[in-house]
């Protein structure tokens, strides 16, 4: 017995792993599985594609450029940088009911929110309510770190500084009078942004926290006065601010401004004439940008986007064509095999 043990001492372990004989499945991509597989995938994709396409087509979108490049455009006069606090109006009409809830977006084009330097020009510690960073903002905010009098800017950085400052009011023209459409500014930003990611300093009143600091240079009001109507919508958890602080992925983007959910407009915007009153503050012509407003309703797939539906349809039909081609090849192959 002992001797036997010695003999096998040197012998390699005879386990499935060491002998590379682990039980294994060898999947073979064969016609028998590929052809029906492709067929099923193709059909499923076409199904999804049709659903997506139909949904996308059913979404109503109304997009209006109000940059005012055109001389005839109502906002043209506001493009002059010397004009301060300019108001302009855009009239439009809706033929059929614009089904609600209607979402009111503003869009910017050729605007690079995804510049690297722009993106890092932010101090999260400030925005997390850390008061020590109010007095000495992060170096990354430069050149929006201190104002000319060397006062710390809160919130600092290019991103906060360049917050979108146009405001809109929507009126339905009912019998010649302007009836204001109530715009709901709640829940336009991510829930996590306002509840987890950004925080106001726990100082009451909020204004006390901003002592010895200055507002960003381009802002009309300091952070604690962003929403005079709702005290809880101020500071860093102001919804508009949060929407702005979520950087857009591409240079042409839209951001959610308001939702139209209440009053007479719960079912949507009824057909009729409307006036959009714009407080035109935000300059974009210097870098060749454009500003738009977009009214849109959404579906389960989000906003209107034909791409997904078309892509599904194309790939679905490709799968089906492939399965047919394969069937033919298979039949031929089998035939020649048998011969």
């Amino acid at each position, binding site marked *: 017995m002992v001797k036997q043990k010695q003999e096998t001492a040197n012998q390699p372990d005879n386990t499935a792993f060491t002998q590379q004989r682990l039980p294994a499945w060898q999947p073979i991509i064969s*016609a028998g599985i590929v052809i029906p597989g492709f067929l099923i995938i193709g059909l499923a994709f076409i199904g999804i594609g049709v659903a997506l396409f139909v949904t996308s087509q059913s979404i109503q979108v109304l997009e209006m450029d109000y940059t005012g490049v055109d001389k005839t455009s109502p906002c043209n006069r506001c493009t002059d940088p010397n004009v301060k606090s300019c108001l302009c109006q855009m009239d439009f009409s809706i033929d059929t009911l614009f089904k609600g*809830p209607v979402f009111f977006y503003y869009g910017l084009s050729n605007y690079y929110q995804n510049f690297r330097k722009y993106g890092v020009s932010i101090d999260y510690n400030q925005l997390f309510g850390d008061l020590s960073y109010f007095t000495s903002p992060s170096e990354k905010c430069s050149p929006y770190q201190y104002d000319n009098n060397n006062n710390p800017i809160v919130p600092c950085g290019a991103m906060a500084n360049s917050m979108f400052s146009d405001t809109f009011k929507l009126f339905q023209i009912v019998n010649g009078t302007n009836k204001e459409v109530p715009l709901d500014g709640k829940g336009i930003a991510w829930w996590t942004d306002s509840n987890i990611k950004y925080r106001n300093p726990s100082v009451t009143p909020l204004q006390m926290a901003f002592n010895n600091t200055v507002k960003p240079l381009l802002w009309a009001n300091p952070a604690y006065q962003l929403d005079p109507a709702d005290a809880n919508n101020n500071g860093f958890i102001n919804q508009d601010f949060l929407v702005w602080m979520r950087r857009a992925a591409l240079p042409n983007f839209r951001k959610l401004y308001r939702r139209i959910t209440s009053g007479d407009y719960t079912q949507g915007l009824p057909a009729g004439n409307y006036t959009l009153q714009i407080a035109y503050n935000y300059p974009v012509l210097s870098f060749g940008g454009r500003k738009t407003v977009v009214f849109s309703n959404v579906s389960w797939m989000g*906003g209107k986007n034909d791409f997904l539906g078309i892509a599904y349809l194309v790939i679905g039909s490709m799968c089906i064509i492939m399965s047919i081609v394969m069937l033919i090849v298979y039949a031929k192959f089998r035939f020649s095999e048998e011969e």
Partner: protein
Amino acid sequence: MLRRLNRLLGGDERRVDSRTIYVGRQPGSTNEAFIPPKFCDNRIVSSKYTVWNFLPKNLFEQFRRIANFYFLIIFLVQVIVDTPTSPVTSGLPLFFVITVTAIKQGYEDWLRHKADYEVNKYRVTVLEDGRRISKESEKIKVGDVVEVVEDETFPCDLILLQSSRDDGTCFVTTASLDGESNHKTHYTVPDIEKDLEMLCATIECEQPQPDLYKFVGRMQIYRNNQESVVRSLGPENLLLKGATLKNTKKICGVAVYTGMETKMALNYQGKSQKRSAVEKSINAFLLVYLCILLSKALVCTTLKYVWQSKPGQDEPWYNEKTPREKETNLYLKMFTDFLSFMVLFNFIIPVSMYVTVEMQKFLGSLFITWDKDFFDPEIKEGALVNTSDLNEELGQVEYVFTDKTGTLTQNNMEFIECCIDGFQYTYRDTASELDGFCVTDGPVSKLPQKASTEREELFLRALCLCHTVQVKEPTEQDQGQGGGLLDQVDGLGVDGEVLQPPQEEKGFIASSPDEIALVKGAVRYGFTFLGLENKVMKILNRNKDVEMYELLHVLNFDPVRRRMSVIVRSRSGDTLLFCKGADASIFPRVRQEEVERIRMHVDRNAKEGYRTLCVAYKYLSAEEYAQADAGLREARLALQDREEKLMAVYNQVETGMSLIGATAVEDRLQEEAAETMESLQGAGIKIWVLTGDKMETAKSTCYACRLFQRNTELLELTVRTLEDGRMRREARLHELLIEYHKKAVQDVPPGVTRSWCSDSQDYGFIIDGASLSMVLNCSHESNSSLYKNLFLQICQNCTAVLCCRMAPLQKAQIVKMVKNSKGSPITLSIGDGANDVSMILEAHVGIGIKGKEGRQAVRNSDYAIPKLKHLKKLLLAHGHLYYVRIAHLVQYFFYKNLCFILPQFLYQFFCGYSQQPLYDAAYLTMYNICFTSMPILAYSLLEQHICIDVLLENATLYRAIAKNAMLRWGPFIKWTLQGVFHGLVFFFGVRYLFSNPALQNNGQVFGNWSYGTIVFTVLVFTVTLKLALDTRHWTWLNHFVIWGSLAFYVVFSFFWGGIIWPFLSQQRLCSVFAKMLSSLSVWLVIILLILLSLLPEILLVVFRNPFAPRPRQAAAAVTPLSYKHLKEHE
């Protein structure tokens, strides 16, 4: 005398190749101020680092690797320049790799330190001025007399002065040096007085050199008022450091080489590093990717400045520059931008690839060691892997150079027959004829004719005397019984019937099994060699008398002379020279009239595949002997060119002999040698047999191994064919080469792979050493290269090539020639003996067989296997799989990093070339380390695209991967295009999705990090699923790591986005992943893009198989258009 000595030492040129050592007192009282030469102390330093230099030295060595250096540069750029990604992203993986390597090397070095310390502090006994002093081993100086007791290892290289054994010998094992565990005998220097205190001598010997088996020196012993005596020193007097004293109570020796100058230490210096062809491919691909990287960075930088030149783009009001940025020089800005882009895209060359490749090689080699098919119950050992760098090279072998003896054959010699004076004596090992071997009857009584008894006995005496065999030392108990051995052997001699093979096996020890076979053969005929004691050889003759012969000289065997001789003096005072050797080396040295009778037998035996030796003798007259003796002694004392001088004397002495007879010894084929050779040939591997043996013997072995078939036409280029015509040899050589070339190369229609089409004519080529050296060293320069080319072309068109009568160096020459020939084919050498070492080292892959001829081949090999038959599995299964695995690993790594970085590159076009990273830093860092590394590692360890049994059965499958098939530019471009396609799909798919970033039914929009995360998610899933598609062998481990990696990615992403990380300055990924998954559109786009990316892959797999012309067997194993085939192995 002294002056001469001083002159010898004084001359610088002398000091270069010899050293002088003083033993005991200084020779005489010298007035000349002589400074004893300084030698290094006996401290062994095998460690590389000390505590102080570890960090700088190790880091320096690590950063000498080009890849590490590249990552260091990237890291430094990140630290210095304001770059898009934080230094952590590339610093962390680099730090990890460097640290792990440093820890590993540090640990290994610590072990070496510990071992060194143990060796250096070992207490040894040194004799100084007559006292025995205990010293630490490291304090031994050259010239010290050291005492070593049994089972101790020698602390330095010693010249043996005194042994406790009476006959002035001692036994050592060199197991730790060369792995040979048998006992070797070493001899004291003759004429040393017993009292070592009084010894006064100088030793002159060569400077330290690493060859374990070479040593020349001489010792000059001074006696009081007497002329000094000079004795020659050879390897038999030298005890090597590291060897262990056995069977001897104690010895004394003088240290000649110490510390780092000992032969063992000199042998530490590693072998030359062999690099695999795959590594060369990796480097080429790396270069391509480096170019891609540079051009990407260049394109982006250029476009950035073109784009910025448009008004308003450079510095929009919302993103003003800092004053410092404004001041910076434009060109400096361009340069830093370029560097930033480099950093942004540097992940295209992943540091983790090197780690993974290294791990794959190391872990993969374990499977070879673990393979129980390589375990040989006889020697109780499995395969041994000395370098794991060459695993994949095993799958690329095109030429196998094999030794014959011990490799193709078992090297287990059996005495078959002999012929004495032309009469044949056959020994049949069958019971019925055993009685024929009774001593009284004589072995030849049944044969009709026989030689005279006198000649018979002379022949048998020659067999008994002419060898270097030792009788195995009896064990302790046997010694107690006194003449136990004698009785035993005596008994054997009388009754041949009770001959016990095991005892017989144990009886003799020799370096060559031929000699044992011959001595054993002699035993069968009644002459038993009893051993060598005090230079006296004892033989038990047929009459059970002990004959004594004084051994005067041994003219050692060497492969050039191919013979050995002994000079003995019999009791009666006759001086005899017995010589045995290859027929070709004996026949010219004997009287010609004797040759013919014997030649017939020799040729016949050789044809049957036996190893033949001829035995000759001559009487030496007193003058002749005196002359020979003087010549030999002089040559042995020579310090320079000793070998040549000895050779000359040997040749001079071994002349004018008379031939007595010849022997035939059978060397049986290795197990499954023929099958192995056949399947290797089937795999498209050309097999060359390189042997030192006779042509006829080797040829018959080749036939037996089925290297040559019945219908193989043999093209012979040997001394015999060269001497055929009346032409000069050179002219004949030229003619033959042209003729063979015409036959084998030109007449073959191009495009036909001839070697395995059964209907076309097979050629076998035979060349011998002499002809080869004519081909290689042709007198005319112009012809030389022509001949070489012709020779190579002929050989390449032959199924098998046999090179016989090769000297070891010629073997290496041939390997080198083939290795450097057109297309630089991958060569493999396999051998078991010291004579194969040169070719094992020369070939791309060297394989040692753990055979009977010691361990040198194993020590120098890259892989060692117990038997030849294991070569088949090693190449066809392991080699094939490793090649496929590593090739896939490399291609996959480049692919997955290309499609990782391409979206990031494309994103630059949409972010104003601002070096905005698409992915979060965590993803950038973890992509290669955590998310995608484990599945490919598991794949590269476990994949069996064709299962091992099928690979072994169908050798032709090996051809599919020949010539680095999976790592050529074609597949590389295919993979690259795939990577590009995937990258484009990922990026633009998401780009079009984001044409409306409102992707949820609550109307909220997604930002740039969502964009990146969606791309990244598609990326991780696609590359992992692509690997899953490529995996043909799903073990639970594959399932675990593939699905585990994906699950880990999802869990990690939730975790990473789910918590506010206090150490991060920005929480940009906060809840991005969770938010992303709450959008149905994102789900749909992820599914769509993954499927779209993999669609071509699936189609390729489906369509490739039916149209590709594949061997039938392969098609049967993996029929593409068959039903789903789920195979479970046992």
